[in-house]
């Protein structure tokens, strides 16, 4: 431990002159202290302090470093970007504002209550309530210490939702992972954990924190690819509920700066600046923390009580950057010029040997910062004491426009808020997008036996197979509102598209049957070929999933999470910009706004010799949509024999990025064209039809296309399926039977309708491309009629299900009971 740069920095005192220092000396300092500042930023700091004619203190530089970090400022995403594509160049002054945020601005959805400004996005839920949703990543900590990293990730996103407006009560946790396959047998450097271990420990961390907090973890996804072997991705999300009048908060000068919750210790210094750095061989160990769910639960309960009594005016979570970030952000929100005056001698500490700057920067977990009117301080202290939560008043918010931090008589920080929040120098970043070369690949022709082989391989594929081993570790039932569960069907083991939550635990009104559905879309395989198409497909998948359970996508909201390699590489940045453009166009096409987002860049492993291994550009789209009556929610399992099967949408012959392409070992492949407007209309109508009780089951066609979706619906309901490929609406290029069965064209949903309801169903979907492609059978088989009218394949669903179920436990080597000999 003592060899790490952070530890050296702790020990050495601050005697570094800045004003006269040459850039090289500053860069050396930067590397030693792990600030992750670039040359232009170091010069800007030097210029600022030259102007005010004094040396910066250590705490000041640290404050600036974390405020300007990728984690807090999203500096790449908000930078000017010149995107060169072919011979043309598009210029963005602020990439995020002109793509994703611009779509939201243009859509002007009245039910979006707070977008892109607070700790989470907030949408209306009926008239009295609001939903807050936030998804973020915790990749770097999970790579180093998976259990603690996952725990603190979950804890952090819960606090984000708790810290939005006046605070929302968490009602659902979500988790999405990207890992290397757990049976990876290749070489890994000594400090990189094996993916099997990363996966099991991350799952354990998410499980323990969510379960101990009493929040259901009911929605998620896992994507496996070997390019995540150095940098696993861990996305955690929380949905919270709050009264509609608690969405907006305001801080007045004179309010006390109050810290509640855990004590401050030396844990997790430099987590924020750490997010700007890529993982090198000697990762900074001080960035690791362990979560304390029970403490956070107490803070949560106490704060919700205090919110009820309006004891505080605003709050925020103490995340990356610690007090410096939380107090700094709140100071900027104070009415008037803003500002804060803080004496760190008032802070409650875990150990007494902390340097003052460490108190200011420590990222100790489970802490919140509140703005409290002085007259309420006593009442707040008493209320917190009842829950066993410690409170300390650090200082007060002011209207001086300055942030003024002392430790007794020692002045640590005395800076203009303007410089901290606006002083970041911006320079135009170069981005380049070149579409990968398309091999003209002949579309595969396959006979029945070959199609059956592909199907058996596809259901057992790591990216399709059952996630039951993971899901069953999570408590997805706590709070009693999980109406549509992550695993569905006759035996509660089918792969649901989305979960539906009935937030009765918050609304306490059993006559109110409104609920909401949450789902995700992720497709890095497609992103390798075309990030723009990936963004479109992800938005489509997330919205199709919530439409499948019967939610109303006309009031859906989206969240984006970008995980990318180094933005210094123009190709990486070009792909990122293309994905952002895809998000914008998908949002406009579906008329669904983005309400919150996050990005994690520099996800690459630099080998000792300097070769960088970036992750595949990964975009996670999360959707939340209201559902008018949870009693009408639909699951994906077939409900019985002799029902009609309808397919919404059209298959194209493009199989780029699909499982079929992987099976055939085609690296390129054409990408399907996608009409977001048509998909939007179809999903809206499907939601309405479900609300009328016309839909028995519905399942989105994702990995493995029609064949896998039909198999999943069949084996989840123990009901057979007969599909006639001749009845499929086809694009001109989709000729082969294998392509019809396995193409992953977006915008398609397979729906089961009772024969008595067919007429009404078709009426409800008038104007939508929907075709009757088959029937359900009593015999549990998947029977496919080929284009020639003969049976192409007939596979037993129980066998397919067994294959689908055993992949993950086998690869994880999860032992079965009774194997511990001598101990029976």
């Amino acid at each position, binding site marked *: 431990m003592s060899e790490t740069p952070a530890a050296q920095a702790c020990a050495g005192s601050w005697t570094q002159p800045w004003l006269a220092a040459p850039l090289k000396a500053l860069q050396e300092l930067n590397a030693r202290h792990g600030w992750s500042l670039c040359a232009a930023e170091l010069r800007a700091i030097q210029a600022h302090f030259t102007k005010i004619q004094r040396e910066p203190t250590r705490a000041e530089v640290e404050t600036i470093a974390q405020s300007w970090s990728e984690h807090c400022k999203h500096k790449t995403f908000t930078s000017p970007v010149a995107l060169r594509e072919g011979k043309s160049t598009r210029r963005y002054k602020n990439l995020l504002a002109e793509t994703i945020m611009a779509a939201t601005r243009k859509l002007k959805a009245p039910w979006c209550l707070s977008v892109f400004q607070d700790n989470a996005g907030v949408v209306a839920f009926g008239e009295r309530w609001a939903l807050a949703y936030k998804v973020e990543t915790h990749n770097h900590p999970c790579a180093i210490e998976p259990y603690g990293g996952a725990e603190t990730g979950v804890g952090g996103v819960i606090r984000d939702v708790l810290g939005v407006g006046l605070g929302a009560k968490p009602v659902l946790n979500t988790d999405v992972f990207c890992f290397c396959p757990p049976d990876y047998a290749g070489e890994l450097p000594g400090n990189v954990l094996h993916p099997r271990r990363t996966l099991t420990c991350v799952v354990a961390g998410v499980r323990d924190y969510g379960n101990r907090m009493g929040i259901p973890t009911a929605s998620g996804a896992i994507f496996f690819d070997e390019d995540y072997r150095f940098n696993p991705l861990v996305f955690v999300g929380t949905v919270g509920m709050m009264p509609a009048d608690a969405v907006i908060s305001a801080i007045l000068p004179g309010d006390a700066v109050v810290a509640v919750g855990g004590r401050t210790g030396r844990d997790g210094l430099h987590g924020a600046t750490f997010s700007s750095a890529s993982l090198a061989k000697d990762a900074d160990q001080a960035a690791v923390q362990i979560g304390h769910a029970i403490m956070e639960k107490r803070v949560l309960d106490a704060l919700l009580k205090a919110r009820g009594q309006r004891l505080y005016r605003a709050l925020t979570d103490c995340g990356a950057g610690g007090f410096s970030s939380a107090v700094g952000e709140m100071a900027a929100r104070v009415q008037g010029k803003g500002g804060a005056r803080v004496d760190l001698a008032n802070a409650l500490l875990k150990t007494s040997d902390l340097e003052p700057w460490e108190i200011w920067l420590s990222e100790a977990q489970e802490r919140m910062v509140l703005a409290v009117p002085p007259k309420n301080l006593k009442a707040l202290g008493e209320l917190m004491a009842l829950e066993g939560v410690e409170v300390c008043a650090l200082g007060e918010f002011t209207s001086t426009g300055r942030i003024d931090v002392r430790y007794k008589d020692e002045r640590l920080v005395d800076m203009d808020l303007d410089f901290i929040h606006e002083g970041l120098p911006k320079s135009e970043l170069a981005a380049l997008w070149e579409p990968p070369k398309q091999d003209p690949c002949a579309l595969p022709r396959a006979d029945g036996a070959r199609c059956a082989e592909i199907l058996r391989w596809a259901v057992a594929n790591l990216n399709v197979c059952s996630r039951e081993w993971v899901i069953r570790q999570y408590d997805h039932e706590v709070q009693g509102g999980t109406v549509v569960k992550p695993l569905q069907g006759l035996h509660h083991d089918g792969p649901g598209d989305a979960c539906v939550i009935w937030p009765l635990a918050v609304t306490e009104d059993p006559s109110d049957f409104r609920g909401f559905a949450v789902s995700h879309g992720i497709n890095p395989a497609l992103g390798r070929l075309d990030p723009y198409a990936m963004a479109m497909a992800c938005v489509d998948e997330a919205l199709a999933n919530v439409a499948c359970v019967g939610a109303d996508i006309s009031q859906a909201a989206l969240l984006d999470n970008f995980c990318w390699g180094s933005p210094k590489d123009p190709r990486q940045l070009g792909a990122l910009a293309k994905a952002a453009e895809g998000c914008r166009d998908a949002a406009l096409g579906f008329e669904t706004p983005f309400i919150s987002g996050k990005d994690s860049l520099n996800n690459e492993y630099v080998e000792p010799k300097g070769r960088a291994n970036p992750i595949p550009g990964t975009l996670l789209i999360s959707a939340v949509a209201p559902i008018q009556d949870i009693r009408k929610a639909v699951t994906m399992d077939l409900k019985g024999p002799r029902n009609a099967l309808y397919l919404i949408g059209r298959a194209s012959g493009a199989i780029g990025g699909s499982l079929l392409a992987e099976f055939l070992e085609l690296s390129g492949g054409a990408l399907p064209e996608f009409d977001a407007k048509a998909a939007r209309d179809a999903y809206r109508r499907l939601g309405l039809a479900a609300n009328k009780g016309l839909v028995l089951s519905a399942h989105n066609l994702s990995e493995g296309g029609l064949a896998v979706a039909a198999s999943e619906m069949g084996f989840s309901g123990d009901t057979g399926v007969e599909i006639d490929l001749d009845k499929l609406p086809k694009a001109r290029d989709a000729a082969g039977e294998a392509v019809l069965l396995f193409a992953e064209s977006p915008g398609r949903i397979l729906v089961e309708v009772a024969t008595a309801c067919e007429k009404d169903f078709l009426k409800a979907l008038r104007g939508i491309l929907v075709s009757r492609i088959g029937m359900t059978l009593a015999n549990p088989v998947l029977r496919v009629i080929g284009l020639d009218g003969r049976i192409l394949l007939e596979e037993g669903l129980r066998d397919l299900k067994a294959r689908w179920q055993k992949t993950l436990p086998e690869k994880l080597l999860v*032992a079965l009971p009774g194997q*511990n000999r001598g101990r029976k």
Partner: protein
Amino acid sequence: MTKTNGKDQGNLLIQSRGNGKTAGAATYVVEVASKLGFNDAPGIALLGQMPSIGVCGAREVRVSSLYEITGRLSHSQMDILGRGLLCDPITQEFRLDLSASSSAFLIGPHWRVEVWFRPQVTDPVGESVCKAVADMGLPEPDGVRTGTAYQFVGRITQSQIEKVVAKLLANPVIHRTKVAQL
């Protein structure tokens, strides 16, 4: 006597050093394990994982929880703690002394690995135990640190055990470990 919280390179085992007769603060190590016949899920899981890193000789693995409690507590008060707080008396047993023999703890030759948090790492379970002890009306301990003990029976060499520790049990970023052959 081995020191529990200092340098940890020694191969000797942490020993319980409780002595209710001294007036000052004492340090005890409480070990909690599932009774013979009850499912030891972490042990079964670990046994299943070991072949994946090429360690196949193990016949049995047992996992127990460790609590290092420092405070002004007597031996009989520690007994109350063990029974009433740290173990589930139906499915688990505890011991304050490594030499205490019971069917829940291995007697024959085996490898023993202990994994503890490094001193500077937050130990939430330890903090909760501290509070819980006070809630039981006993003197609040000065500190509680938690750890895990793994016991391996079978044909395993020292280097194999070290491989298991490095690949499956401990992360040097937050853990320190001790290995001993008993």
